């Protein structure tokens, strides 16, 4: 394992300290229990957005704390959901008197820990569950689909709407709408290495890729021979469109997300390939984002996310945002 770390036990805390000091004008770190929050204190009269999840997906979620997006983020251990006390402390610290909206990726652990936090907070807390990963079948016999890169889009759109002072119920409804209109699917070219484990999570042959991989290195739909970028783009876009079933002429946002170790040169190439697929299917790509946003430590790989746009979503997507990882319009 080759990583910039000191000791396996200190990775999380040291990277959080480094992050918070690099972005001090935007975020602050609190410890015992650990969470990141916007500088400047609670925004009075605004619903506070709190997210969180296992670490190792940076910049998600801490990189999205700031004006126009999250009020706080609770980082768990690497690939392990955070605990209710973190969520409760974060919610208290950012409560602006208009309620708390938890944005939760659909993993058993995340859901249960956020549930416990919500139960303890009681009234005034609501939750948006993100499950955009079309790789995993949505079936009532399982815990359902996973939340992956689409989470960033939900957080951005709902974050902008919260600045606009929408109330808790409207924000929850908006978040659920964005989630419904969003689909993602990813491919891994290599495994990732959790620092505490010290070895790759899984083995992948020199000519293989894992199609439909999760952001914790969970298996996807199947393994196959590494294909050209155009074929990968086609495979992923088709799977998403099968799920979203957009109309011809539908406007959409296209996000190409790297898994952490994939250089921008490859991501922009994949963007071009995916965009062609989308346009061939009749979509109009109106908004775009390319980069490493919802990652899996040092995994080489990428995912495609599509969100079907309407004027409300587009407007909130374009609204100003000042966070460490996303910044525009201000």
């Amino acid at each position: 394992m080759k990583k910039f770390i000191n000791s396996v036990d200190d990775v999380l805390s040291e990277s959080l300290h480094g992050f918070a000091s690099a972005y001090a004008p935007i975020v602050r770190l609190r410890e015992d229990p650990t969470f990141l929050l916007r500088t400047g204190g609670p925004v009075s009269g605004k619903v506070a957005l709190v997210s969180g999840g296992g670490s190792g997906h940076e910049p998600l979620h801490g990189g999205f704390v700031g004006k126009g997006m999250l009020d706080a983020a609770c980082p768990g251990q690497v690939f392990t959901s955070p605990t209710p006390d973190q969520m409760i402390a974060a919610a208290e610290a950012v409560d602006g008197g208009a309620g708390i909206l938890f944005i939760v990726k659909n993993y058993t652990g995340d859901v249960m820990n956020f549930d416990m936090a919500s139960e303890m907070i009681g009234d005034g807390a609501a939750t948006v569950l993100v499950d955009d990963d079309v790789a995993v079948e949505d079936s009532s016999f399982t815990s359902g689909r996973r939340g992956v890169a689409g989470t960033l889009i939900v957080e951005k759109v709902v974050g902008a709407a919260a600045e606009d002072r929408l109330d808790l119920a409207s924000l929850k409804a908006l978040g659920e709408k964005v989630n419904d209109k969003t689909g993602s699917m990813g491919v891994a070219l290599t495994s990732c290495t959790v620092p505490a484990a010290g070895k790759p999570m899984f083995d992948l042959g020199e000519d293989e890729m894992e199609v439909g991989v999760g952001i914790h290195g969970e298996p996807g739909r199947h393994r196959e021979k590494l294909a050209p970028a155009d074929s990968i783009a086609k495979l992923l876009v088709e799977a998403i469109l099968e799920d979203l079933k957009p109309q011809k002429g539908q406007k959409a946002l296209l996000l190409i997300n790297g898994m952490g170790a994939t250089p921008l040169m490859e991501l922009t190439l994949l963007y071009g390939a995916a965009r062609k697929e989308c346009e061939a299917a009749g979509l109009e790509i109106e908004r775009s984002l390319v980069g490493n946003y919802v990652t899996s430590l040092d995994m080489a790989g990428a995912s495609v996310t599509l969100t079907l746009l309407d004027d409300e979503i587009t407007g909130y997507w374009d609204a100003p945002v000042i966070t460490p990882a996303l910044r525009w319009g201000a």
Partner: protein
Amino acid sequence: MSADWLKPAIQAVAETLIAHSEELSDLDSAIGDGDHGHNMKRGFQAVLEQIDQIAAEEPPKALQKIGMTLVGKVGGASGPLYGTLFMQAGKSWDGTPSVAAVAAAVEGGLDGVKARGKATAGEKTMIDVWEPVVAALKEASDKSGADAAAAARSAAETGLEATREMKATKGRAAYLGERSIGHLDPGARSSELIVQTLSDLVSKGVAP
């Protein structure tokens, strides 16, 4: 009043889980995200750090404290699940060291786990260990503590082993679908380790 068997029992459980941490993570690597051992270790290290305060309580209250510590330290799926298991077991126990009372306590914990995780037996989870353990304890309610402990231990073993051929439909292993078959469930293994450790203590006469 605290019981003098309490501290050694908590210590034994914590040390067993910590000692098996790599094994548990390896099991989790096969069908999950490879952290179950680390999660249990982190939680039970925190329990050990507070063992004196915990063991100073009455056993039912001590169980609740263990549960709260786990909820606050573990995270993941196993944090709320084991947290709920211990908290609810504590709440469901009248404190008597009878087999029947212990059976009721464990059943309370199991019901908590089922409610929290919305799962039932046969889904390749820790439930597949605790459900047969509850059944064995209930059936042994007129037997000696040692006999009941032995029955619980063997029920846990059988339950654990049964998870190998199950297809996971809850938790991370569910994403594997058919590919989850052939592997023991890590949470079932940690549960079985707890039952095994406690049952040994009872056999040795350390705990009632």
